[in-house]
């Protein structure tokens, strides 16, 4: 009997996951169904992370497993195989700060949870955020930063969004090692997330996803 892909991935059994996917692909199964199961597995990973059963290494490792699965499945996908996106998010590490580990984890978890994420990278000037919001019409903005200098960049970025007349059209979340409620108030953001799943929860709430 074929092992259950959802739970095998959720349990982070890399080799077994690869074998299951290989078997299912060679038996001619719909690749979209395989991807769907993999995403269900990732949902369980997210839940385990939120309940402190899993930690960052487990989250990062699950990402690597999912990447391997996606690479195996992709050549068999038809063009219509794109999954439905639940909302758009513009994301980046603010000006003067090049830290990307935290940002990359949140971007990845948002993507896995169905968001269309426009990742602007690191050391992103305030104006770039404004331009991307205008271009995509994304209603959610995520600002990441690790340094104390980033607090001011976050404040400036929120200021630039306001100056462009977009403040009422977007919700802004901030995050990073030293971010607290006090920093959120200072930056003028709508909320802060203490970890990647917090970011996903906020985005889902703002996008009206249940």
């Amino acid at each position, binding site marked *: 009997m074929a092992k259950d892909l959802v739970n095998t991935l959720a349990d982070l059994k890399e080799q077994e996951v690869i074998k299951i996917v290989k078997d299912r692909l060679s038996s001619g199964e719909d690749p979209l169904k395989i991807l769907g199961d993999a995403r269900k597995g990732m949902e369980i990973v997210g839940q385990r992370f939120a309940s402190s059963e899993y930690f960052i290494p487990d989250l990062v*490792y699950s990402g690597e497993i999912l990447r391997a699965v996606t690479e195996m499945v992709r050549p068999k996908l038809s063009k219509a195989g794109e999954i439905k996106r639940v909302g758009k998010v513009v994301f980046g590490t603010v000006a003067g700060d*090049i830290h*990307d580990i935290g940002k990359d984890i949140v971007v990845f978890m948002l993507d896995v949870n169905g968001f269309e994420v426009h990742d602007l990278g690191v*050391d992103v000037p305030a104006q770039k955020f404004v331009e991307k919001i205008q271009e995509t019409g994304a209603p959610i903005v995520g600002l990441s930063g690790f340094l*104390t200098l980033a607090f001011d960049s976050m404040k400036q970025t929120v200021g630039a969004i306001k100056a462009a007349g977009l403040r009422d059209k977007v919700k802004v979340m901030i995050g990073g090692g*030293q971010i607290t409620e*006090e920093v959120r108030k200072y930056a003028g953001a709508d909320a802060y997330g203490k970890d990647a799943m917090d970011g996903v929860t906020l985005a889902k709430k703002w996008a009206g996803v249940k």
Partner: protein
Amino acid sequence: MEKKWEDMMPEEKQETRFQKWLSPEGVKFVSPEAERLYKERATRIKDAIQMKKKPDRVPVLLIPSFAPAFYSGLTPRDVMYDYEKANQTWKKFYVDIQPDAHFGCVAPGPGKFFDILDYKLYKWPGHGVAPESTYQAIEGEYMKADEYDALIQDPTYFFTTAYLPRVFGALEPFKQLPNLTTYVEMYGTGITFFPYGLPPVQAAFKKLLEAGDEALKWMGYFGAFMKEMTELGFPAGQGGYTKAPFDIIADTLRGTKGIMMDMYRQPDKLIKAMDAMLPFWIQKGVIEANMNSNPLIFIPLHKGADGFMSDEQYKKFYWPYLKKIMLGLADEGVIPFIWAEGGYNSRLEVIRDLPKGKTAWLFDIVDIAKAKKALDGIACVCGTMPTDLLTVGTPQQSRDHAKKCIDVAGKGGGYIMSNGAFFDEVKWENLKMIVETVKEYGVYKK
């Protein structure tokens, strides 16, 4: 007759190191007042760490990143490249705010060194990031997943011919260098040494000599700074630094993502590699403590913080090897002064497993009451100055916070007030308020 070093117990070694630090040789203090202050400050820190008696008051330390540059209205770029400016601004910062120790002027320079060798591991002010920003590491796999055996077998050769050529563009030709640990006799000499004649290798050495000149020039300024601060009555709060084995491999060899994969895919090799690092990094701490006649060796902690791994993973991959470094230093009478950057609330029970009065723990984000309870009678607890408080709080909030810390963690001694995360530009009035409050409110009754 004086007891020989090798016959001393760790406690005696520690006391001998502290005494040397308390009474530095050949120093001409600027005034009797400066000499008195130096001794008071050093004694205060010693008493808080050893926990044999209560200090006269809670010591207060400030460990800045580029804060002194901002304090003087300069950019990080300015002080990375102008060593005299760095010295002046760092001195002004400490003399104005008057904490109980200074932490050298190590953070900024030598800027030109990195230009000469084309350092790839960091972006620094004016070189990849704005002059007003601080230097920041670029994570990557500077050691590949399949290179553990090479690292374990011969760390020095691996660093010389693989790691350094990857992080310094100018040293790329070093990957052709021979392993001199196999050279013992006349036979075969030419085959061993010919790489030193290759033009690219020789060019790399020329760059290295040029960079060495710059490092030596910087050391002149650095030495002058250390000397002047001592003469002004500030003990150095740091004799050097070393690192936790997991962070050595995670921070700049494998990268955060790389090591997280290794925890799953090749845990045994990761553990062997951490073991292989131990002698080098214990020795580094001891050598620097000797060189600077200062028992306090900092160990900044990174990837074992709250959330970065599970309790089980911490106990398997992080703590055993950090503990070996700490005990290796403590056996030589050196104080491992842990700097737990990030959150550490979930690790407090595990880290209790240490000998009494031989270590100090500086926390960044922690419930200070819980930290004190966990480490009471085991290790000096240091902290906290939350970054958000320093940057967006008020002086009154800063004062309240300092008082609360002293109330809960200061009880009975064994406590130092200090920042637990590097900071750059903050509200100086908040910083000053914390220092003032500790001096006034942190006095122990006789």
